[in-house]
């Protein structure tokens, strides 16, 4: 600990006192009404710590803005600064280290009526929580972030932080720091914060002013307050008295106007710019999201009523599960064909169906597949080693999968792409050419195939498949898809009987 600079009882809130900065009892009274009325004083902070000044300045901003206590939310993470909400008579939440901003983001999105403050130290905000800080800035979520920057991890005993100046000593930098520090205000400005101001614990009235402006800014606002940790930073860096350290802050704070008109060499070493450093209001996240809600609701309203249900005749009982594999190249619509097949079997034919498919690189290669198991009972095992019915729309798929056709199973291949078939008795149809030349859209080859499958195999009824195809048809393409389905049926019926399955 540094030298004791105050009587621990100085926080006693008995009326009539004047505080260390000469504030009168009136000012204290306006602060006191926002402190929790029981037990929690003195604070955990060291005597002389800037956090008390900063806390007072923040609640005076709340007071001057006339915010209702019930509508004010304070969220904090870990560290000395993180303890501030404990003392404040608002809605307060103290979370894990670095996570105050994302927690506050959830709160703001769940209840945008709340005015949400996030109080953080430099470690909380820029080290462990650095990623959250820049993303909240980018999103312009309407939070009021107050970053108390005292160059050090205070609560854990003085380890260097991302803002510790090069050369300063810390308990984990006993030979002096070598890492260049973050300039917090410039960081959040670059990341998109719409209001950024910096001041010091010495400039208490400025803190109040900037916090008020932050609240009034609709979007992500940051007030960086340079503060003193004489106990763990000052002690190691020849500023062990809180007054010395606060004076150092005062002497190194350069007003923006002066900063902009001077050369770096003209400023004291360690100087920092103070004032409103950035103000560029833009729509905040919740405002923009509310527009999304409106757009989504309008889109929903335009969708209209779903089509009338289609009834299909009940199919014949099925003694054993039937395995179906639809395969080809990514982009041929095999996955969708599998989904349509499964839907036809289950939703329309009233059986059970389980559909699985290839994912990742496999799905994009030449042997993409979509499997459907169909049965009259719940499917316990959604995979198969052998298939009763198979569609192969590329040579690669045929080479790889046709050997897994059950003896006596049905294989349909696209004769445009599959020229060598390892299995005897395959049904070859120019599915892609029919889609391209007869239907007029090559993309309907998968539906041509489904039409053909409805003839070649009794697993799913034609009526069920037709209904499921229409369900899947994008708006305005019902006719096209019906045509493709019918052409598939026609082609399959035209196969010589020798090429029809047994």
């Amino acid at each position, binding site marked *: 600990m540094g030298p004791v600079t105050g009587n621990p009882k100085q926080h006693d809130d008995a009326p009539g006192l004047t505080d260390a900065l000469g504030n009168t009892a009136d000012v204290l009274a306006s602060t006191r009404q926002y402190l929790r009325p029981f037990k929690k004083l003195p604070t955990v902070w060291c005597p002389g710590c800037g956090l008390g000044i900063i806390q007072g300045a923040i609640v005076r901003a709340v007071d001057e803005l006339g915010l209702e206590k019930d509508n004010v939310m304070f969220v904090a993470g870990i560290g000395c600064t993180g303890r501030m909400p404990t003392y404040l008579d608002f809605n307060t939440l103290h979370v894990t280290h670095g996570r105050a901003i994302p927690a506050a983001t959830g709160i703001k999105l769940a209840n945008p009526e709340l005015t949400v403050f996030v109080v953080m130290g430099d470690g909380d905000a820029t080290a462990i929580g650095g990623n959250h800080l820049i993303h909240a800035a980018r999103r312009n979520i309407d939070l009021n972030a107050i970053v108390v920057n005292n160059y050090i991890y205070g609560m854990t005993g003085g380890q260097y932080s991302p803002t510790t100046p090069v050369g300063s000593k810390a308990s984990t930098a006993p030979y002096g720091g070598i890492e260049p520090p973050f300039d917090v205000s410039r960081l959040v400005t670059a990341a998109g914060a719409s209001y950024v101001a910096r001041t010091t614990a010495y400039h208490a009235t400025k803190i109040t002013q900037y916090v008020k402006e932050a609240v009034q800014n609709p979007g992500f606002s940051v007030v960086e307050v340079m503060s003193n940790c004489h106990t763990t930073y000052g002690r190691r860096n020849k500023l062990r008295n809180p007054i010395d350290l606060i004076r150092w802050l005062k002497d190194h704070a350069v007003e923006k106007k002066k900063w902009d008109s001077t050369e770096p060499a003209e400023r004291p070493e360690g100087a920092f710019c103070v004032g409103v450093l950035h103000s560029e209001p833009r729509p905040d996240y919740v405002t923009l999201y509310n527009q999304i809600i409106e757009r989504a609701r309008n889109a929903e309203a335009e969708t209209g009523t779903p089509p009338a249900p289609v009834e299909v005749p009940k199919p014949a009982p099925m003694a054993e599960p039937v395995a179906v594999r639809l395969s080809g190249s990514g982009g041929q619509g095999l996955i969708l064909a599998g989904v349509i097949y499964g839907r036809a079997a*289950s939703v329309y034919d009233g059986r059970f169906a389980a559909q699985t498919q290839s994912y990742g690189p496999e799905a994009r290669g030449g042997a993409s597949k979509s499997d459907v198991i169909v049965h009259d009972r719940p499917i316990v095992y959604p995979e198969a080693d052998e298939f009763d019915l198979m569609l192969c729309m590329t040579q690669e798929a045929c080479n790889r999968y046709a050997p897994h056709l059950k003896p006596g199973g049905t294989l349909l291949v696209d004769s445009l792409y599959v020229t060598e078939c390892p299995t005897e008795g395959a049904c070859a149809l120019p599915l892609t050419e029919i889609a391209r030349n007869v239907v007029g859209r090559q993309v309907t080859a998968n539906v041509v195939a489904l039409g053909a499958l409805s003839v070649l195999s009794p697993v799913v009824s034609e009526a069920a498949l037709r209904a499921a195809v229409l369900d899947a048809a994008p708006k305005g393409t019902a006719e096209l898809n019906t045509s493709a389905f019918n052409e598939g049926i026609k082609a399959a019926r035209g196969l010589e009987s020798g090429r029809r399955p047994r």
Partner: protein
Amino acid sequence: MPSSSSRRRRKPPAPDPTQDRGRRFDAGGNATETAAQRESAGQRSAESTSIFVQGNAACARGALAAGLRFFAGYPITPSTEIAEIISEELPKRGGRFIQMEDEIASMAAIIGASMAGAKSMTATSGPGFSLMVENIGLAAMLEAPCVIVNVQRGGPSTGLPTKTHQADVMQARWGSHGDYPIIVLTAASVQDAFDLTITSFNLAEKYRTPVVLLLEEATGHMREKIEIPPPEAIALFERTAPSVPPGEYLPFDDRFGDVPPFAAYGTGYRYHATGLTHNRTGFPTEAFEEIDELLRRHARKISEDIAELRLVEHYKMDDAEIALVAYGSSARAAKGAVDLARAEGLKLGMIRLVILWPFPTAVIREAAAQAKHLIVPELNMGQMVREVERAASGHARVHSMTKVTSELWAPHEIVEKARALLGVNGGA
């Protein structure tokens, strides 16, 4: 590509004993929201609807049916479809979706939203779940109701993004540091993914706890037909509001039982909540008796002694000599194995764990007293089998079946194990 919207409406189906329907397991019947209220919230009243969808889509629909108001997530295979569907559907219902910068932030955001009163959820897979565990501990400490869906993939580390495992069952229980209870459910089918998502929300709200719902790549990506009941047929549980005025409210008040009434931030109940160990006022404490009081209340609140939490399905267990203890996709194979074995005259039965944590010790103890052998097939190196062994405590022999190839268990593989135990040669 069409959306998987309603395709066919039919009357609510008669209960089918061959189907395991999670709704049967719904917690509580104490729905506080009426059908009329949900109606006015924009949900259509209709007969049960049949759709053919992925498990991930069913999970998303279950969350919406449960009254989801906030979702935060980060993309990860094989769970991403849940976020995609919710990003499209949630704003239509006035809720809000956000894609966060990582899973740590996602978990923090749903906790924040929950504390502000919104039913909240995230969805992820193993690597993302590892990042979430930090704040799952915070949710347990704050007693913030929320649902975390983990669509399990192969691991460790980046592992197998598109392949299935059941390897996160222990992490779901013990992932965060410290001693805390949690509810973990697991789904075996696409219908389960819908039903158990609703159950997860109900349990989260009722017990003020994070609930983890474990899916698997296999069930998350598989499509099956599911029945979506009309909103008025779905019982929803809402967190219990305080019965005392703001001046008397304590956020962790144990006078009303082990689950303290919940006041959302911004409703006039100003209080402090913290991840620090706290007393009933919400403020930090280091008093020995208050520390003990808090942790023991947490443990009582969600314990295996609560009958309502013993969510299991018994299948042909009445005369079973071998009991399969299975969960998730392995329970599908186990059910198939029971039927195959019974056709050969072998007396197999199955206990399907719908809830993994708190572990239903009493149920397994009972099975161990009845059956000679318990077989535990898992898609990992043997995780839940240790709990089964603990519960059986020597009353039955417990056999682990492990598989980590990323393939599913097939029914005949389990039957072979049973035959070997009974000294029976291979069947037909």
